[in-house]
């Protein structure tokens, strides 16, 4: 499980790159968007940017790289490591550190670490409006003088200070200045310089890292660098020098060196704070609003009910709100179908377009209004700051299944799409936590599965739509819990890692930002419908019309033969029909395709398909089918993401096998159990 480091693919020399870095929740992504004009999603919880993202300055095309939000460069979790490796190895010419000016002290820790690494730093003092609201004053000119770097006060959310930031950053490319150092005190300094001298003699390490920085980091027992030292050639001298230095310091200090170094850094920051920050009023008062809300939201007894009500409301509202728009989607595709027949007449081409593409894509797109609303709700949760609270509320529960509260966020994101959810597991520090979360995330029902549920629920469970949908999602959650417990017990035993997470102040999400975020995620769905799903549907159509001469999508066609071959496997689950079986196979491409395939195989669009299903399926079989669609093998995109994150085909194979077996067993229990209870 490694996040192998790959230098980015820029052809420009790296010193002509601006890197954006900063603590989580500082408005880094907002600044990136303002600088580059791209529309990245802005969330109000730690860990929005888990990968570096690249863009170009609007004014002069200088590349800008947005790094994951991080409190430090200690490389404690994978996303911190992404940021640190980039700064260390790609050596961007200018680094903009975005700091939350209303929380300057804590934010300065990262800035100091960057300066110690020798970065060419520009400090973006963001959220200056909150500083004024808090009746604080920050002397940014003094801060700039003390640190000897450009400091730009700004309020990115209101587009204030962006131009100045751009000009200061661009001007900084030509800056050369004295390396920045912190005085760690006589004893430690003595050991640093001794270590530094030995490090400078080493051919490869001295080229890779600034010597003083490396010396400090080794004394801090940075695990990645110690590992590298362990595997470096001819590093005996360094190891010995490090051992001597540590022994010397142990005899002087009762505490360990690492703690003392961190404290010296904070001491330095404290000194700067005294010089530049003036508080006119107790800041605690301004945090009181968030605290008041938290009194209710985080309440021991109310917290979980509030969360469940929020989720339940989301699903209850999905249908009525989606229904308002669904008519337009249907009318649009009917109109396209009429247009196509009019243009191409009858024949193979018209069959491809009408029977294949329009039926298939149209059926899938019928779920778009519902998906839009689901993403809207998730965006609201993220942007308001509630997501971090959800992690807090769920910590106790997550602990009971062997995980920690933070693992809840990827799971919740899984309701939208499993791919970003799998990537969001990077914010988990512990590899065991991360693996378990990644393995169960696909059981959280993603929006791509929604079209399948919508189809069957509308046909068979019209009176209790919200409730039946909720039950499917709940089943996914229950299965995820059971599997997490099993994986924890047998594959990744051990204590769950401790939970630490910042609770950002609540921010009222703007309608514009929430809509933008919703659109961004939904447009990925539409693009997928336009490319991958259309491709899949053309393939299915082709398999339905060949070999030449067979009746369209009949049992004699290629797909019919294959479906008939595997159908008996699903007979005990209630749907031994070859069409149902074939659709599942194509659902591997993307789960929405299940509906499209059913549409193509039955030679009808969304409306007609509902009628056919009503005649040929039983409600119980339909429910069992939904359960299988929920659980069986995640789509190819998710498998790809898991391969990328774990760097191992073994885990991809594992997840395919376990979800297949789990899905079959669960559907079997649902169907046979249902029959025994007298349902049909």
């Amino acid at each position, binding site marked *: 499980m490694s996040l192998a480091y790959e230098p980015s693919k820029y052809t420009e020399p790296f010193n002509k790159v601006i890197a954006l870095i900063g603590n989580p929740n500082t408005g880094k992504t907002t600044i990136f968007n303002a600088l580059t004009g791209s529309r990245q999603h802005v969330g109000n919880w730690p860990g929005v940017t888990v990968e570096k993202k690249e863009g170009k300055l609007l004014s002069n095309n200088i590349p800008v790289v947005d790094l994951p939000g991080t409190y430090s460069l200690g490389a*404690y979790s994978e996303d911190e490591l992404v940021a640190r490796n980039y700064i260390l190895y790609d050596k961007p010419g200018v680094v903009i550190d975005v700091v939350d000016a209303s929380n300057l*002290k*804590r934010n300065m820790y990262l800035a100091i670490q960057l300066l110690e690494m020798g970065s060419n730093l520009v400090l973006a003092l963001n959220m200056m409006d909150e500083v004024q609201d808090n009746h604080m004053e920050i002397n940014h000119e003094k801060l700039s003088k003390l640190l000897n770097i450009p400091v730009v006060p700004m309020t990115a959310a209101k587009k204030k200070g962006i131009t100045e930031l751009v000009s200061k950053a661009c001007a900084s490319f030509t800056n050369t200045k004295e390396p920045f150092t912190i005085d760690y005190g006589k004893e430690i300094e003595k050991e640093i310089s001794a270590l530094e001298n030995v490090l400078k003699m080493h051919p490869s390490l001295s080229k890779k890292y600034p010597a003083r920085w490396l010396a400090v980091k080794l004394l801090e027992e940075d695990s990645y660098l110690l590992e590298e030292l362990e595997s470096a050639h001819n590093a005996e001298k360094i190891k010995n020098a490090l051992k001597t230095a540590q022994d010397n310091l142990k005899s002087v200090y009762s505490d360990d060196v690492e703690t003392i170094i*961190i404290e010296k850094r904070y001491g330095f920051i404290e000194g700067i704070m005294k010089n530049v920050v003036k508080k006119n009023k107790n800041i605690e008062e301004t945090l009181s609003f968030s605290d008041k809300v938290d009194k209710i939201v985080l309440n021991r007894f109310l917290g979980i009910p509030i969360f469940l009500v929020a989720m339940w409301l989301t699903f209850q509202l999905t249908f009525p709100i989606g229904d308002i728009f669904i008519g337009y989607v249907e009318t649009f595709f009917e109109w396209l179908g009429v247009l196509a027949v009019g243009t191409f007449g009858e024949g193979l081409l018209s069959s491809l377009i009408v029977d294949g593409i329009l039926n298939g894509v149209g059926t899938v797109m019928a779920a778009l209004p519902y998906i839009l609303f689901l993403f809207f709700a998730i965006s609201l949760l993220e942007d308001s700051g509630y997501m971090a609270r959800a992690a*807090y509320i769920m910590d106790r529960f997550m602990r009971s299944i062997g995980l920690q509260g933070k693992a809840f966020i990827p799971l919740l994101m899984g309701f939208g799409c499993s791919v970003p959810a799998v990537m969001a597991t990077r914010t988990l520090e512990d590899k065991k936590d991360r693996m378990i979360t990644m393995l169960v995330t696909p059981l959280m029902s993603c929006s791509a599965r929604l079209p399948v549920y919508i189809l069957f629920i509308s046909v068979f469970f019209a009176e209790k739509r919200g409730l039946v949908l909720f039950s499917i999602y709940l089943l996914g959650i229950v299965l995820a819990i059971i599997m997490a417990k099993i994986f924890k017990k047998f594959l990744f035993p051990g204590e769950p890692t401790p939970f*630490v997470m*910042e*609770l950002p102040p609540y921010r009222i999400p703007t309608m514009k930002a929430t809509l933008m975020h919703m659109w961004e995620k939904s447009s990925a769905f539409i693009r997928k419908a336009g490319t991958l799903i259309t491709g899949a549907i053309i393939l299915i159509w082709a398999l339905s019309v060949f070999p030449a001469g067979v009746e369209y999508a009949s049992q004699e066609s290629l797909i019919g033969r294959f479906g008939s071959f595997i159908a008996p496997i699903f007979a005990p689950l209630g749907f031994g029909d070859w069409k149902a079986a074939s659709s599942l196979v194509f659902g591997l491409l993307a789960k929405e395709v299940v509906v499209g395939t059913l549409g193509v195989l039955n030679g009808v669009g969304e409306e007609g398909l509902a009628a056919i299903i009503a005649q040929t399926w039983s409600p119980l079989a339909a429910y069992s089918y939904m359960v299988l669609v929920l659980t069986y093998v995640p789509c190819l995109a998710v498998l790809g993401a898991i391969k990328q994150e774990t760097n191992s085909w073994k885990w991809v194979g594992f997840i395919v096998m376990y979800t297949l077996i789990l899905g079959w067993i669960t559907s079997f229990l649902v169907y046979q159990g249902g029959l025994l209870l007298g349902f049909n």
Partner: protein
Amino acid sequence: MSKKMPLGFLEAGKNATICKVLGGNGLRTKLGEMGFALGTSIQTVRNDGTGPVVISVMDSRVALGRGMAQKILVQEM
């Protein structure tokens, strides 16, 4: 000045200074970076006696798992 105790026992609304952080290397570094350095004054915002606590440290709110809170020794002020 009263005696030292684990942060997990500090009631909501009480102020304290951090005396010692126990636990492994990575854990201590992480806590230090979040602002839990020796000598820092903190305030408990929420403590239900079970589940995570919410601590006010360096003008921000940090949720800490109970196990972690037990590893931070504080002195009540």
